[in-house]
C-alpha cells in the first residue's frame, strides 16, 4: 500500500481531475442552457439547443455527484466544513441542480408556449447561478472560511452568504461563468448544423475574452489585497488541531509570493491564457479548435486555483491552525487506498463508455431531427 502522504497527494490530484471532468462536460450543459433564451430566437431553435445536450446531460451531471462523493469519501472534513459554512449558497445551488434536470426533461413535453417559455427561463437562470456559484465557492476556498473546531472536532461555524460575495470571489465567479458560457457556445458549434452556430461563434469569442480579463483581474486582486496562509508545522497522526499555520498578506511574504507564482502555477496559468486566446481566435470553420480552446481554459483555471492554494484545501480565517490541508483533512490510509483501486478499475471503464456514447451521438443535429418523438 502506498504511504499516506502519497495517497493524499493522489487524491488531491484526483479531486482536481473529477472537478475538471465535471467542468468540461456538465460545463457545456450549463453553458448551452445559460444561452437558451438569448441565442435562440424561436421554439425550434431552443429545442435544437436543448437536444444537443439531451442524450448526455444525465451522464455529465454524475461528474458533479461523483466529485461531491469523492470529497465526502476522501476529504470528509472538507465536505462538512464547505457545505455547512456555505449553507445558503449550497441550498441555492441545490435548487438549481434540481430544477435543471426536471426542466430539460419536462420542457418539451407540453406544447403550451407559456409552459415552455417558463421552463426556458428557469433553465437559463438555474444554469447561470451554479456557474457563478462554483467560482465564488472556489474563490472563498482560496481565501478561507470562518470556521473552527472544539476539542472533540465538532465544527463551529456561522453560515455565511453575503460574506461570500467579496471582490476576489465575485471575480472568480465571473471567470467560471464566462468560461462555461464560452464552452457551451463552443459545444453548440460542434453539434448543430444550423445558422445558430454563427451567433454561437461570436458569443464564444466574447465570453472567452471576458474570461481572460477576469482571470488576470483575479490574479492581481489576490496578489495585492488578500492574505495567504503558510503551513509552519504539519499535524502528527492527522490530528488536525495540532498544527501551526501563519497568515500574511501575499505581497509582503516572499515565501507566499513564491508559492502563489511558483513554476507549476505559472504553467497552469499559461495553459489557461493559451486556452482563452485559442478560443478567441478560432476561425468560423474551426469549431474543434474553439472547443479545444475553451477546454484548455477550463483545465488551466481549475489547476491554477488548486495549485495556488496547495497544500491548503480550506483555510480557516478565524482559527488558521484549524485549516484543512492535504496532509490532515483526508480519510484514513486504507480508505484512500481502497477507493484508489476502485477508481483505477472503474474510471477507465467510465471513460470508455462515455466516449462510446459521444461517438453514437456524433452526428450534427438539424431541425429535421426534431420530429422524432423521443426528442425533447
Amino acid at each position: 500500500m502506498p504511504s499516506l502522504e502519497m495517497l493524499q497527494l493522489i487524491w488531491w490530484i484526483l479531486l482536481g481531475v473529477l472537478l475538471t471532468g465535471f467542468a468540461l462536460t456538465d460545463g457545456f450543459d450549463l453553458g448551452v442552457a445559460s444561452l437558451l433564451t438569448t441565442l435562440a430566437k424561436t421554439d425550434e431553435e431552443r429545442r435544437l439547443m436543448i437536444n444537443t445536450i439531451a442524450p448526455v446531460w444525465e451522464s455529465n451531471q454524475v461528474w458533479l455527484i461523483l466529485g461531491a462523493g469523492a470529497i465526502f469519501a476522501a476529504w470528509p472534513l472538507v465536505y462538512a466544513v464547505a457545505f455547512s459554512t456555505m449553507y445558503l449558497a449550497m441550498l441555492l445551488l441545490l435548487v438549481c441542480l434540481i430544477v435543471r434536470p426536471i426542466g430539460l426533461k419536462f420542457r418539451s413535453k407540453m406544447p403550451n408556449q407559456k409552459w415552455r417559455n417558463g421552463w426556458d427561463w428557469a433553465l437559463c437562470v438555474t444554469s447561470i447561478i451554479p456557474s457563478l456559484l462554483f467560482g465564488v465557492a472556489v474563490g472563498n476556498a482560496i481565501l478561507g472560511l470562518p470556521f473552527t473546531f472544539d476539542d472533540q472536532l465538532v465544527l463551529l461555524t456561522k453560515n455565511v452568504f453575503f460574506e461570500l460575495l467579496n471582490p476576489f470571489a465575485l471575480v472568480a465567479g465571473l471567470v467560471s461563468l464566462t468560461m462555461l458560457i464560452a464552452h457551451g457556445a463552443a459545444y453548440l458549434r460542434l453539434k448543430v448544423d444550423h445558422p445558430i452556430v454563427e451567433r454561437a461563434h461570436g458569443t464564444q469569442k466574447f465570453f472567452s475574452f471576458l474570461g481572460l480579463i477576469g482571470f488576470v483581474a483575479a490574479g492581481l486582486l489576490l496578489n495585492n489585497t488578500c492574505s495567504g496562509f503558510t503551513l509552519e508545522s504539519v499535524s502528527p497522526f492527522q490530528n488536525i488541531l495540532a498544527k501551526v499555520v501563519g497568515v500574511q498578506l501575499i505581497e509582503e511574504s516572499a515565501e507566499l509570493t513564491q508559492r502563489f507564482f511558483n513554476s507549476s502555477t505559472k504553467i497552469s496559468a499559461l495553459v489557461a491564457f493559451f486556452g482563452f486566446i485559442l478560443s478567441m481566435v478560432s476561425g468560423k470553420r474551426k469549431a474543434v479548435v474553439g472547443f479545444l480552446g475553451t477546454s484548455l481554459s477550463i483545465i488551466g483555471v481549475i489547476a491554477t486555483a488548486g495549485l495556488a492554494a496547495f497544500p491548503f484545501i480550506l483555510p480557516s480565517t478565524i482559527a488558521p491552525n484549524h485549516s484543512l490541508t492535504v496532509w490532515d483533512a483526508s480519510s484514513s490510509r486504507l480508505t484512500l487506498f481502497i477507493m484508489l483501486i476502485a477508481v483505477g478499475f472503474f474510471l477507465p471503464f467510465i471513460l470508455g463508455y462515455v466516449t462510446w456514447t459521444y461517438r453514437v451521438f456524433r452526428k450534427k443535429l438539424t431541425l429535421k431531427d426534431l420530429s422524432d418523438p423521443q426528442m425533447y
Partner: protein
Amino acid sequence: MFESLTAIQLARLQFGITAMYHFIFVPLTLGLSFLLAIMESVYVMTRKPIWKQMTQFWGLLFGINFAMGVATGITLEFQFGTNWAYYSHYVGDVFGSLLAIEGLMAFFLEATLIGLFFFGWKKLSQQAHLCVTWGLAIATNFSALWILIANAWMQNPVGTSFNIDTLRMELTNFYEIFFNPVAQSKFVHTVSAGYVTGAVFVMAISAWYLLQKRHVEFAKRSMTVAVSFGLASALSVIVLGDESGYTANQNQKMKIAAMEAMWNTQKAPADLLLFAIPNEEKRENTLEIKVPYLLGLIATRSFSIEIPGITELEESAVLRIKNGQKAYLALQDLRKDRKNSVAMQQFNKYKNDLGYGLLLKKYTQNLQHVDEATIKKAAHDTVPNVTSLFVFFRIMVLCGFVLLAYFLIGFWYSIKRRFAEKPWYLRSSLLALPLPWIAVMSGWFVAEHGRQPWAIEGVLPTFMAASNHDKSSLVISFSVFVLFYSVLLIFDVVLLKKYIKAGPDIFSMKEGA
C-alpha cells in the same frame, strides 16, 4: 409553526421528508427498468412491433420518473454536508466511500445508459439497444446495492474502529462491510419491493385502459408481463423481509422489541402480536390479539432462544452507558497525552461502548461527574417510539400480503387469459396502486425511526450528528424544500396524467419509425 421543534428535530424532519420524497421515485425506477428490459427482449426475439411500442411507452413514463429520482437524490447527498457536519466527519471515512463507489460503479453507468436508451433507438442496432436497456436495469440495481450497503452499515456498523487522533470511525475491513448480513437481506428486500411497485404501476394503468376498452392488446400484454414479475417479486419481498427481521434481531434487539411492542422479556418462544394498542407510559398493551410462539420462531428460528423485552434492554443500556463514560474519559486523557498507557488500556477495554457514553452529552458536557438519574435518562433515550413502529410495521406487512393475494389472483387470470372479462379485478388494480408506496414508506419509517436514538447504531447518537446551525437556517431550507417539492410533484403528476391519457399510440408501430 416551527416553535415547538428544535434545530435537530428540523434537520431530522428535513432528511426524513426529502428521503421519503426521493423514495417515491426510486422503487418505480427499480421495477420499471427490469420490466422494460423484459419487454424489449420479447421485441427483439419476436420482432412484433407492439413490444417495441410497449417498451417505448413505459420507457417514457420511466424517464419522467427517473429525472425526478435523480434530481431529488442530490438533495440527500448534499444534506450530509450541510445539515449533518459531525456525521460527515465522524463516519465519512466509511460512509462517504460507499457513496463514492456507488457513483463510480453504478450511477455513472446508469446515467449514461439512460441517454442511450431514449436517444439510441435509431442509432443503435436492436441487439445493442437491448444491451443498453439490460445494462440500465442492472446498473440501477447496483446503485441500490451500494446505497443499501451504506444504510446497512448505519444499522450494523461492522468493519470499522475508532481512531483516537482523528476522532472518527475508520475503515478496518472492507470485506465485512460489503458482506454485512444486514446489507444482503436489506438489498433483496428493498429492490424486490421496487419490482412490486413497478409491476403494480403497469398493472393499474393497463387495467385502466382495459376498463375503457382502449389499447386492449397493449394493455393485456403489459399486464401479463407485470403480473408474473410482480408475483415473483412479492414472494421475494416477504421471504427477505423475514430474513431482515432475523438479521435485525442479531444486532438491533431494541428495534425488534419496539416493533413488536414487547415491553418485557417473554418465555421462549415469544408470541406474535397481530393487533394491540400499546401504552408507552404504563409499558403495557391493551386489546392484544396474538399468535402463540410465532415471533420467537421468526426472529430466532428456534424454540428456546429468548427475545429480550424493552425494559430489560433499557436496563442493560445502563451498564453500557457507564462503560462508555469510562471510554470517553480515557479518550480525553489520551488527547492530552498520547502515551498515557493506563488511559490507553482503559480506552481499549471500553471503546465498544463509547457511543453509549456519548448519549450522556445530551444532558451534560462534563462526563466526569454524572449522577445515576442522568444515566437513567440516557438509558431511557435508547427506547424508540413504540406505538408508531408497532403500527407502521403492521401496515407494511398487511400491504405486502394484500399485494401477494392480488398478484396470485391476477396470475390465475393471466394463465386463463381472462383479464379483460374481470372488471372487478381491473377496478381493484386501480385501488392497489397506492399500496406499494404505502408499504415502502412504512418500511423505511420502521427501519430508520426504529434505529433512534442512533444515527449509527451504538456508535453515534443522532443529536450529535447534526451541524451546529441556528434554527433559522433550518427553517429556511425546510420551507424551501417543502414548497419547491410540492410544486415539482404537481408538475410530475400533470405530465404523467397527460401521457397516460394520450396512451401508447404516440409511438408509431411502423418499423423504423
